[in-house]
């Protein structure tokens, strides 16, 4: 996503990313990031919380107006209502990221990509 943002910015289209993986986006470097400190999956607000979603979307629009230069990160002022435990558990042995079936499918996709690449199709 960050690479697409950079390309659009290079070519004259302003962008804002609404994202949860702050370190990854900032490592790449983008024009504007609205950082929402939520679990991967809901960067635009918690499910069914419309007021929060509207507020976050509004903050992203405001950031388009207010950012004066690149690498501008604003943190949305919300904490995940289910607590912070997810931060300790994500990508740990205790809680594998993918269940076994998903991992098989993920590996199949990766293999398919390698095959297409070898055939010069991608």
């Amino acid at each position, binding site marked *: *996503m*960050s*690479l*697409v943002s*950079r*390309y*659009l*910015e*290079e*070519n*004259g*289209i*302003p*962008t804002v*990313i*609404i*994202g949860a*993986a702050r*370190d*990854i986006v900032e*490592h*790449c*470097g983008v*024009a504007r990031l609205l*950082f929402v400190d939520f*679990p*991967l*999956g*809901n*960067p*635009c*607000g*918690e*499910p*069914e919380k419309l007021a929060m*979603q*509207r507020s976050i*979307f*509004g903050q992203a*629009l405001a950031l*388009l*107006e207010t950012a004066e230069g*690149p690498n501008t990160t604003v943190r949305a002022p919300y904490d*995940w209502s*289910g607590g*912070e435990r*997810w*931060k300790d*558990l*994500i*990508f*740990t*042995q205790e*809680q594998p*990221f993918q269940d076994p079936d998903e991992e098989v499918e993920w590996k199949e*996709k*990766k293999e398919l*990509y390698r095959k297409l690449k070898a055939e010069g*199709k*991608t």
Partner: protein
Amino acid sequence: MTHVKYIDRTREYYLSQGYEKPYRWANFDDTPFTPLKKPLAESRVTLVSTSEIAVRSWDDQRTPLEKGEAANVYSVSADTPVEELYSQTFDYDKHATSLDDVNTYFPITRLHEAAASGRIGSVAPTLYGVYNAYSQRKTREIDAPEVLRRCRDEDVDLAILTPV
């Protein structure tokens, strides 16, 4: 509590899973920046997302990769009813949350609301999905230019980007 350091966390995690070569996240010295060219209230806005957003009524639910297509970019009409949308991705924290509410990662309803209230000029006719590629080169050389081309075709002024 501070934010999760995904680069460190995933490096350790995949090492422990037997993947020895750590993923090299993209990194650059400079960051491009384009200031707004006109007020938001006059701007045409699109969404671009890597959330693997999909439309239930599509006849072919395969990803471009599965179809053997070169570009990972696809279009979703902005007037698609939100009930028709869902995500095909596994890459989210399924222990902490769900993807049942599309607007939590593809804020199409919020975008239409912003146009209805006059906060933005208009919603672009087309919104975009980009499947995550395994190759950064491909993202830079094929997918990103394809997003740009489609945005220019529809005179898009601004893009809101949402990873999942």
